[in-house]
């Protein structure tokens, strides 16, 4: 049966921290308590044998194997990855449960988990789309009409220019023809009058010959060139 006081005394004796009264009690126990005395003797023997314990050489062993170079963790082994995955999952669940939605505005597409839009929203969307369509068509038509008008004006101007230039040419040619005709007419008239004059001269000459024996006067010969 162990006595806690005996254990305490033995422990303090081993650590050389007995007080005077404890020392007296300890020495008394060593004298009167054989079991305690044997333990003290064992402790003494152990202390002595521990000091004299034979040191044996440490066998050769691979000390380097205990030095483990820390491995650089891969990106998929990042410690925050499970937490990030969990956070993303929680966020996704919150988005689904709360009917997360993102509106479409200015042609930008967005995603959401909300229900389908109601009839008024659909009608408003349709109105907006029809209005946009009409406006774009109107703009297109206006642009087309403007382009057509411009093209027509250009064509008219070109036609007028052509007509003006062509009539001018024709008039010039007509006048030339007229001048030429007049000149030819004058030439014909001159020839006609020359022939008439010749005939008249010949008749006069003949008449003169009939009335007298006086030879006819020599008259210059008129040619067409005169």
């Amino acid at each position, binding site marked *: 049966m162990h006595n806690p006081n005996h*254990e305490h005394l033995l*422990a303090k004796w081993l650590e050389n921290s007995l007080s005077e009264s404890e020392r007296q009690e300890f020495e008394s126990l060593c004298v009167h308590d054989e*079991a305690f005395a044997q333990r003290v003797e064992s402790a003494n*023997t152990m202390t002595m044998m521990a000091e*004299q314990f034979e*040191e044996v050489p440490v066998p050769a062993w691979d*000390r380097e194997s*205990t030095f483990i170079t820390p491995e650089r963790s891969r990106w998929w082994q990042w410690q925050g990855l499970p937490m990030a995955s969990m956070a993303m999952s929680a966020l996704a669940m919150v988005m689904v449960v709360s009917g997360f939605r993102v509106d479409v505005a200015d042609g930008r597409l967005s995603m959401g988990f909300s229900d389908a839009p109601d009839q008024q929203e659909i009608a408003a969307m349709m109105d907006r789309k029809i209005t946009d369509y009409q406006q774009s068509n109107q703009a297109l038509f206006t642009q087309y009409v403007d382009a057509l008008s411009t093209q027509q004006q250009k064509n008219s101007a070109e036609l007028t220019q052509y007509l003006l230039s062509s009539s001018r040419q024709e008039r010039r040619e007509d006048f030339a023809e007229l001048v030429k005709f007049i000149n030819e007419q004058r030439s014909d008239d001159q020839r006609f009058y020359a022939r008439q004059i010749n005939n008249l001269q010949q008749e006069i000459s003949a008449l003169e010959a009939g009335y007298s024996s006086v030879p006819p006067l020599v008259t210059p010969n008129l040619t067409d060139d005169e």
Partner: protein
Amino acid sequence: MFEKRDEQLISQALKGNRRAWLALIKRYESQIYHYGIRMTGNTHDAADLMQDIFVSVYRSLGNYRGEGSFKGWLFRVAHFRCIEFYRRKRPEQGLDDTPEPECDQHCPESGYFRDRASENLMQAMQRLPLAQKAVVELKFFGQFTFDEIAEQLGLSANTVKSRLYSALSKLKLELEVENA
């Protein structure tokens, strides 16, 4: 030659300095090896245990906060590794107060020490339960105080004293038999 303090070597080893770690091993390997011999009674097991202890120490070196001596922390790790070693080697054996089995397949190695007294002491220690053997080892060979031993083993100081008291009784008998 001026030797670096344990804390300096630990700090350098934590930064990946191999030489600092090896210096730390050389400083304590003999104590750990002899601890292994006395705890296992076998030089081969002691060598395995020593390697196991130093691997474990290196892995948990970052957990050493400098509170208390490194030697105390080292022997605390050694004790846990020793318990693991016993669980692997002798799963049927209790770790606390069950005496070691009589010499069978785990018979302590004999003839390793030239000194007869050392041989007897080692063989006597092998018959102690692991819990008592650890206290004897740390008290007489490790030169730790009872409070330090209690902290290393995770026990109260009174329990440590009680185990030593019981162990001394058995050691007396064992040593008498060995010396007879």
